[in-house]
């Protein structure tokens, strides 16, 4: 079963794993997206990254675990693996890489790197604890900052708003040109001078065509925008309602996973 990663504005996938040492919240309901808990997870993740960059790997590992408890984003598993690798704890690093590999919704590039690191660390002798990894064992990228992409519904919504705004602008241009055409038509009717009359007629016709084009293009854009907004809202509504329980096959046993969109 494929977990849906999309949620209104902030997708969230979380996993409650029996195998996770700190997973004290087994069976816990995932926090909704955009909640204070979600923001806490983001903050912990950012602090973890900061600690990692500062070389404070113990702190980074602790913060990443806390973040994962709050929000089960698989990217945090990858980050923990990288942190343990930096700490020279190869077995823990491999474990977390593997857990990342079996998690749903992972990034293909990171998966490739995780597989490479697992392969590298399981075939080579683990370095002594506390020592840094060799240069050959360094290709793995630094931990990734977790980003929450817009959901398809949100994208549609915003695209619709943009299109609708362009449509309204087009309609406004059409109305403006209609006013100019009506004014020129008034001049056409108000003069008996042939050349002035012809000039006014040509202006009025030009404005009328411009007005019609403005209306047509503006109307089409507005209608398209409205349709996109409607579809986007429908999708968002569906995303809020969708939630389901899933079983993740994880190394060392099965884990219950609850995936939902909020």
């Amino acid at each position, binding site marked *: 079963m494929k977990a849906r990663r999309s949620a209104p504005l902030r997708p969230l996938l979380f996993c409650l794993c029996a195998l996770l040492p700190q997973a004290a919240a087994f069976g816990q309901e995932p926090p909704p997206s955009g909640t204070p808990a979600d923001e806490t997870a983001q903050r912990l993740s950012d602090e973890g990254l900061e600690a990692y960059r500062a070389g404070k790997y113990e702190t980074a590992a602790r913060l990443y675990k806390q973040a994962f408890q709050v929000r089960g984003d698989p990217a945090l598993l990858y980050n923990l693996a990288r942190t343990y690798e930096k700490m020279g704890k190869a077995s823990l690093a491999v474990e977390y890489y593997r857990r990342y590999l079996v998690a749903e919704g992972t990034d293909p590039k990171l998966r490739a790197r995780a597989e490479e690191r697992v392969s590298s660390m399981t075939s080579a002798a683990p370095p002594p604890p506390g020592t840094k990894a060799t240069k050959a064992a360094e290709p793995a990228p630094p931990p990734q900052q977790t980003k929450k992409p817009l959901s398809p519904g949100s994208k549609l919504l915003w695209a619709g708003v943009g299109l609708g705004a362009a*449509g*309204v602008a087009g*309609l406004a241009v*059409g*109305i403006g*040109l*209609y006013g100019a*055409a*009506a004014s020129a*038509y008034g001049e*056409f009717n108000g003069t*008996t*001078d*042939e*050349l002035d*009359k*012809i000039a006014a*007629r040509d202006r*009025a*016709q030009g*404005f*009328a*065509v411009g*007005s*019609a084009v403005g*209306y*047509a293009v*503006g*109307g089409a854009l*507005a*209608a398209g925008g*409205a349709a996109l*907004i*409607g579809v986007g809202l429908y999708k968002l509504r569906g995303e809020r309602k969708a939630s389901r329980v899933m079983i993740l096959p994880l190394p060392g046993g099965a884990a219950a996973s609850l995936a939902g969109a909020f």
Partner: protein
Amino acid sequence: MASRTTFAAALALHLSGCALGFDYHECNKDADCPTVSGQKLSCTSEGLCVAGTPASQLCTRTHPQNPAAGAVPIGAIMRLSLMSGADTFLLQAVQLGVDEVNSFVGAGQRPVALHICDSGRSPEDASKALRVLLSERKVAAVVGPSTSREALAVAKVAGDAQVPLVSPSATAASLMDLQQKDYVYKIAPSDNQQGPVLARLVKERSGSAAKVALIYVDDAYGTGLQGAVSVSLPSSPELVQSFKEGDAKTINAAIMAVKAKGSALTDVIIIANPDAAEFARQLESLPKPPMMGTGGVRIYMTDGAKNDSLLALARDNLPAWTEHLRRLSGTSPTAEGNAYKAFETAFRGKFGQSPTSDAFAPYAYDSFYALAVALGAGQSGPQVAAGLRRFTGNAAPSAVGGSDYLKAVGRMEKGESFPLSGVTGTIRFKDGSREGGLFEEWSISPTDTSKFQSRLIQ
């Protein structure tokens, strides 16, 4: 949201439908058009009800018919429909000049294309014709219009567009008062010069005791010339009365006033353009001067009357009118000399008739040449106007026609100022008016009514 979108779409369709649905077709024929401010509107080929003559009927020809590529567009505004084509001779004179200039294209000169417009039925039509020449034909300069009234009516349009006009036959002194004098030129001598010449004729024939009736057309030409004549007469006129051009009521009123004075008059001066023939016809009954001695009423006309319609009237009434024609004469700007004779010969060779039927035909020829030489200063309106202003000073003149034309253009290109030696004499402009000029006394030949006879008045 859906309902708002639907509303917006409906509004858009409604409004765009309105703008595209504006009706621009007003008529299929003249009868469909209303009368506005006392003027019956005309229906154009585009279905528009408009004042005056439709533009499509005004500017219909070019000369040559198929102009060469890159030809410089020059406009001509002439009376081609009014009075059965009163300015036909003027136009032919201009066409003669165009053909001569275009024969020099191989000598490094750019060809010229003449865009010909009718001045229609009114000064407003002449103005419309000029606007067509400016907006559609992009002319650099215009020969015409031919009457003072039309020249005054179009002056602002020409000034605003900065395109010079050279009128071959407008003579009103008031043209010198225009703000647009940089762009309105008259090549014929001013009425301020013709007035004293006409008064002198009256004085020679009737003495200082002359009793004069002065009838004039109520426009810039008539009013200006009437004033110039009045102040030069030996005594105040017995009768001064105006009429409106083409208006039978005021024309008949003037004729009746003259007839009422009858034998109390010695001289009647008629200042008219197309209506001169009607005055000549109706004043035939006035007492005629005897072959010898005094008595009777002499009739004088002006340059505007010297045209083919007067000849036709005389031709139709011979021999009964022999005496009447003998007492009818007029004054007009004229031309003489070898250059004029060469022009007359070329004109007769090209069109099979003498240009002498219209006093202003040689002036039209010179008008075109003045513009053609001024084009040497540049081909934009202001440049051509600047070129016209350089026809001044006391340097040796350059002649028009033949290879002399190329020399004149060369001097213009060098930035020289010099007088132009035309077929009507030496041309110098000051404030848009020509300095100097020759006059003649013309009359209809009693034996050959196909032509005028004339004598130079010094």
